[in-house]
């Protein structure tokens, strides 16, 4: 009987049997071997796969931690220390997870700036970009709640400061905060729910990452020239070319991560988080983890009420709106920058604007680390660079203004007036015309 279970496929034996019922092999073959990838991707294109791998490592180490962690205010701090001291390999798991959060943001930030430079958010990749923004938001929420779990002083006070922000919302604010806390301050119910959510959200991220990749594979990767694939000559199969390149990048990345884990595991953290949370003692400076500093700076930059005719946005609400707006504006970027040329390599003005924007973001990070009334400075090559004693909040305000100016004014303007350099005919013949880079 010629039953269809033996239907011909290119796969035989067990593989063929499975393939006929669940087309995993053709799917993998399609996505890896026949997925055409521009052949000119540079190393900035490694960071997407690094982010994915980091997510997997975070989930694995996180599950192992969760097996030994107690989400109760009386036990949380001690349970983390038990992981560090008494659980076999516990210190390794925890340090991988703890530094992994920093590595994750580092990789994702580079990934985002790559997109900004090469115009990866432009048609037809708007949804791909927006899904990335959703991932960023979910990551921020996940990391924020994870940082609360060890129940150190910064955990507690960071949670208090950030959840309190919601009280700025008109009408519902106060009630909302009590609802978030599950009480009248950050306390046991807050910790318990943060643990539940911190466990859940990474899996939501996985879901959005899948969509992100589906969207990516629809039109394929952008590339440093920002032009579409025109012929077979422009592309190579993902496997083995980019699998090996990604693996090599992974090796370098693992070296950096391991360097922190084994030799400076607390370099990126704050010493106060090794003091158990104490609601009666406020730390001298409450600072978030480095990856939130630019947003923290924007939050604190709004020091004045904003009158809007009939009603006024007070400083606190203004700060909150600005902070969320800083991520929100990324969502609409594809409609702010409508310049037809993707890659900054062919946009002489945008290229400057981009690098200036990078510096502004670094500047925001530095102002986020300083006290508002502290003179602004930064350290470069061991030198302390000061700016005539001007308070850091002033710089935070300037940088914040530029952050938004860049997106809502400069990019729309450049879309209209910037004359791009001649684009190459195709990826494989970029030298035919004098290209920008």
């Amino acid at each position: 009987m010629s039953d269809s279970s033996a239907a011909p496929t290119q796969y035989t034996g067990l593989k063929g049997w499975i393939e006929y019922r669940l087309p995993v092999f053709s799917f993998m073959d399609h996505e890896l071997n026949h997925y055409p990838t521009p052949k000119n991707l540079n190393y900035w294109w490694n960071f997407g796969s690094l982010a994915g791998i980091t997510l997997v490592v975070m989930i694995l180490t996180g599950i192992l931690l969760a097996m030994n962690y107690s989400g109760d205010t009386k036990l949380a701090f001690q349970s983390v220390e038990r992981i560090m001291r008494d659980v076999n390999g516990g210190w390794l798991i925890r340090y991988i997870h703890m530094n992994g959060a920093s590595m994750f943001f580092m990789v994702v930030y580079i990934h985002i700036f790559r997109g900004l430079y090469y115009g990866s958010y432009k048609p037809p990749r708007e949804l791909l970009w927006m899904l990335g923004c959703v991932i960023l938001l979910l990551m921020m929420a996940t990391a924020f709640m994870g940082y609360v779990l060890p129940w150190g002083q910064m955990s507690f006070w960071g949670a208090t400061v950030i959840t309190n922000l919601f009280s700025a919302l008109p009408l519902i604010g106060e009630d909302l905060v009590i609802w978030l806390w599950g009480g009248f301050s950050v306390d046991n119910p807050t910790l318990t729910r943060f643990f539940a959510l911190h466990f859940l959200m990474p899996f939501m991220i996985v879901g959005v990452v899948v969509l992100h990749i589906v969207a990516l594979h629809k039109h394929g990767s952008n590339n440093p020239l920002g032009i579409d694939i025109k012929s077979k000559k422009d592309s190579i199969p993902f496997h083995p070319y980019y699998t090996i390149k990604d693996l090599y990048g992974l090796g370098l990345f693992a070296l950096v991560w391991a360097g922190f884990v084994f030799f400076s595991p607390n370099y990126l953290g704050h010493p106060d988080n090794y003091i158990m949370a104490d609601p009666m003692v406020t730390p001298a400076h409450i600072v978030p983890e480095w990856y939130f500093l630019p947003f923290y700076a924007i939050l604190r930059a709004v020091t004045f009420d904003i009158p809007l005719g009939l009603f006024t946005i007070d400083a606190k609400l203004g700060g909150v709106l600005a902070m969320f707006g800083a991520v929100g504006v990324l969502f609409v970027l594809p409609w702010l920058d409508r310049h037809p040329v993707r890659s900054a390599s062919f946009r002489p003005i945008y290229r400057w604007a981009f690098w200036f924007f990078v510096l502004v973001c670094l500047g925001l990070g530095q102002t986020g680390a300083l006290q508002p009334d502290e003179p602004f400075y930064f350290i470069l090559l061991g030198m302390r660079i000061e700016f005539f004693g001007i308070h850091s909040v002033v710089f935070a305000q300037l940088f914040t203004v530029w952050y938004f100016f860049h997106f809502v004014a400069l990019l729309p303007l450049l879309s209209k007036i910037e004359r791009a350099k001649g684009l190459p005919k195709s990826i494989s013949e970029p030298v035919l015309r004098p290209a920008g880079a």
Partner: protein
Amino acid sequence: MNLKKLTAPLLLTLCLLAPIPAQAAGGAIVLPEYEWSFSGVFGTYDKPQLQRGFQVYKEVCSSCHGLTLKSYRNLSDLGYSDEEIKAFASQFEVWDGPNDEGDMFKRPALPSDKFVPPFPNKNAARAANNGAYPPDMSLIIKARPDGANYLKALLMGYDPAPEGFELPAGVSYNSYFPGHKIAMAQPLTDGQVTYADGTPNTLDQMSSDVTAFLAWAAEPEMEERKQTGVRVMLFLIVLTGLLYLLKKRIWSSVH
């Protein structure tokens, strides 16, 4: 990436650097840099030093500061025998129970018990120390910026107060304590403990020793971590090198 591409970022950086470089932060306390056997990539703990530091902790600090994240059994890391640890632990009493009659009872501590703190709770600790709380020492090295250097500097930093510096009663001047007003009277002075191994018991020596002991208390995994780290790094370097060669070979056909 060619040099021309980098001109924009470089020029921008230079413009922003124009303002005057200044030296040290005004007002901030600068900690001295001491030598530690446990610093650096290959750092290890010096066991005789940890034992001396434990002695200082035991004879001086432990009357005020707990070490509640450590168990007595952890002392085997310092080279003490099971017998010595048992004997040491049994000097302390812990609550246990209920027994068959349903009563809680006190018994001598076992090696598996956590270090018994000097005070039953925070309030008792404050009451005995003029309202100031002597923090637990288990994590003190990790809980202060540059912890080891800070602790040694703190113990040696009981300098005379500058003229006109107001000190409330029961508070000492300390050059390295934030705000300089510390509610802990100078705990260590020259000759305070007598070392069995004949090491000179200077303030400097005892401060180093107790700091090393507390560094171990905070990071007992440090030696294993760094040794594993060296092996992991070597492995990753070789692996990454091979991956690089493979990458070059696979890509050599792409033009």
